């Protein structure tokens, strides 16, 4: 009975198009945001930040970016790992070349560089479609990883090819390096994610977003009503890569602090982020977060539950975890092929009817 939209009249187009048109939704979201920003930072420790929250936020950002490309514009990409690597190496070069540069600028510029690279590899999308495109983007994945592994300039000619993030500050607080405090890292990533989630939402409910979806749903018809396919697809590649590049930059500088390209940005990352997008819900901002949460939190939860809770051997627990992840993916897709976001939406609709379903 509490969750109702009856009586909430929209008096302007603006309020009709608001992100959360229902007042209860808005309160819940504001409460959640307030909690994330004002309460959580006081309680996070190393474990929560490094093992749980940072991967969640960073993969959330990457999934959001990929969802723009796959979910909104309909172009399947398996180059995510490679593009994240671009972001990571861009920020390494920026951090070491310009030690004074503000980390916000570093992250944004890394995103920008990735956007340029992403658009370049988006060019074939004009001709190649569907799974053919998906496999073709693997060319970007393998090529980029090879490049960063091969050319010394990218890792400042260190003898091993590993890159390590030096200590950098943001507004006087240490953000990168081993001594950075958990809450600084957490808040930095959270803020970026919140701002760019809002921007993503704005884009997809505006002209560009409609053009992306038009291309996704029927590219020929879109072209006939004046959507330029190349420009639109490339813009999706660019925006998506921007997000993914930022995620790569954060993954390297804030989260891991040291990476090796083939291991951290290998093809499994490309698949992982794509899983997040599909499990979460194609074409849904919330879905990106739900998908990231599912694939980041569930394995940790299962592991801790089985090892500490049930006392299983870690190895057996790992095997069972892989098996359970597979079963859950299949189960969720059968229950709701359109992802966790749709499941969430259905729940809300049911709630709206409750307790009188008819």
């Amino acid at each position: 009975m509490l969750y109702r939209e009856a009586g909430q009249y929209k008096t302007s187009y603006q309020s009709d198009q608001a992100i959360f048109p229902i007042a209860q939704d808005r309160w819940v979201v504001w409460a959640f945001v307030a909690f994330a920003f004002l309460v959580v930072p006081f309680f996070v420790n190393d474990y929560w930040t490094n093992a749980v929250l940072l991967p969640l936020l960073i993969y959330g950002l990457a999934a959001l970016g990929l969802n723009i490309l796959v979910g909104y514009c309909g172009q399947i990409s398996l180059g995510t790992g490679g593009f994240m690597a671009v972001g990571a190496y861009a920020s390494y070069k920026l951090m070491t070349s310009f030690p004074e540069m503000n980390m916000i600028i570093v992250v944004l510029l890394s995103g920008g560089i990735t956007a340029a690279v992403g658009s370049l590899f988006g060019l074939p999308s004009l001709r190649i479609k569907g799974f053919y495109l998906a496999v073709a983007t693997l060319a970007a994945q393998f090529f980029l990883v090879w490049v960063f592994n091969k050319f010394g300039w990218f890792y400042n000619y260190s003898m091993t090819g590993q890159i390590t993030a030096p200590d950098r500050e943001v507004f006087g607080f240490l953000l990168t390096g081993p001594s950075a405090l958990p809450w600084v890292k957490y808040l930095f990533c959270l803020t970026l994610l919140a701002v760019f989630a809002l921007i993503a939402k704005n884009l997809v409910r505006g002209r560009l977003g409609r053009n992306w979806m038009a291309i996704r749903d029927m590219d020929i018809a879109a072209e006939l009503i004046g959507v330029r396919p190349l420009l639109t697809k490339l813009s999706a590649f660019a925006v998506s890569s921007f997000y993914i590049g930022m995620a790569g930059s954060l993954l390297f500088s804030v989260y891991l602090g040291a990476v090796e390209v083939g291991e951290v940005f290998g093809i499994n990352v490309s698949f992982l982020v794509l899983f997040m997008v599909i499990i979460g819900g194609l074409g849904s901002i919330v879905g990106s977060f739900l998908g990231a949460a599912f694939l980041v939190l569930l394995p940790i939860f299962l592991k801790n539950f089985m090892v500490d809770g049930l006392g299983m051997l870690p190895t057996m627990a790992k095997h069972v975890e892989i098996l359970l992840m597979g079963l859950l993916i299949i189960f969720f897709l059968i229950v709701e092929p359109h992802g966790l976001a749709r499941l969430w939406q259905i729940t809300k609709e049911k709630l709206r009817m409750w307790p009188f379903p008819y």
Partner: protein
Amino acid sequence: MEFLIETILSGLMAGVMYSLVALGFVLIFKASGIFNFAQGVMCLFAALTFAGIMEKTGLPWPIAFVMTIGVMVFVAWAVERFVLRHLVNQEPIILFMVTIGLAYVLEGVGDILWGSDVKVLDIGLPSGASDYMLDNFNIYVEKLEVFAALIAAVLVGFLAIFFQKTRIGRALRAVADDHQAALSVGISLQTIWVIVWSVAGFVALVAGTLWGAKSGVQFSLSLIALKALPVLILGGFTSIPGAIVGGLIIGVGEKLAEIYVGPFVGGAIENWFAYMLALAFLLVRPQGLFGERIIERV
């Protein structure tokens, strides 16, 4: 000159090994439009089961082989019964995602049943350089791969007869063309899917055995799928000859690139080169070499 011939021959042989993996993808895509990401893991799972049965029971390999086929048929049945049946008419990307879930499940089950150690698959397959070629022509040809090429030829011949001459085969082609039509001539879609996945499971067993003979059966076998993907897009998702020809082109192309171009750029280029080669082909023919032409209408 000898070396060039040797390189090309090796490329062709390696190509056949890729084609064997790609074949499984094509079969399933052709009959059900599913991009079966689990194909690589199926190779691993089949080879693991094969090696595992021999190791645990000590049975001679032909019996273990037949038992493994039985397991793969069971997997096919289970996939249809518990997964595909509930997802008829879903979008391709959802079906793709489901096969990823399937890959996890098979990997988990394989690990739990047989462990993660390397298993040596010693069933007397020929291996090592062919003495005849090496002594007479100074050309290195790997016997295992010649054998693999023969197997591939037999397999493709078998599949061709199966598709052209048998009732089930014709039904499969009908399904590939039009699900509705196939239903209307009284063929159960369920049966067909079980058969196709069984055949793909059998192909996976063959590919897994041959690759496993080379490196021992271990987790990395599942990664050979990554070698098959460029073959697949180059040849076209729906064409069996495409999988073979695509494999040969990729095999030769990447070997030539690695040996003749690699040294100038620091080597290890064959992985991405295969994809770039396939990408270049796609730019000319977006549906792959033998894929069905995509006609756009409004």
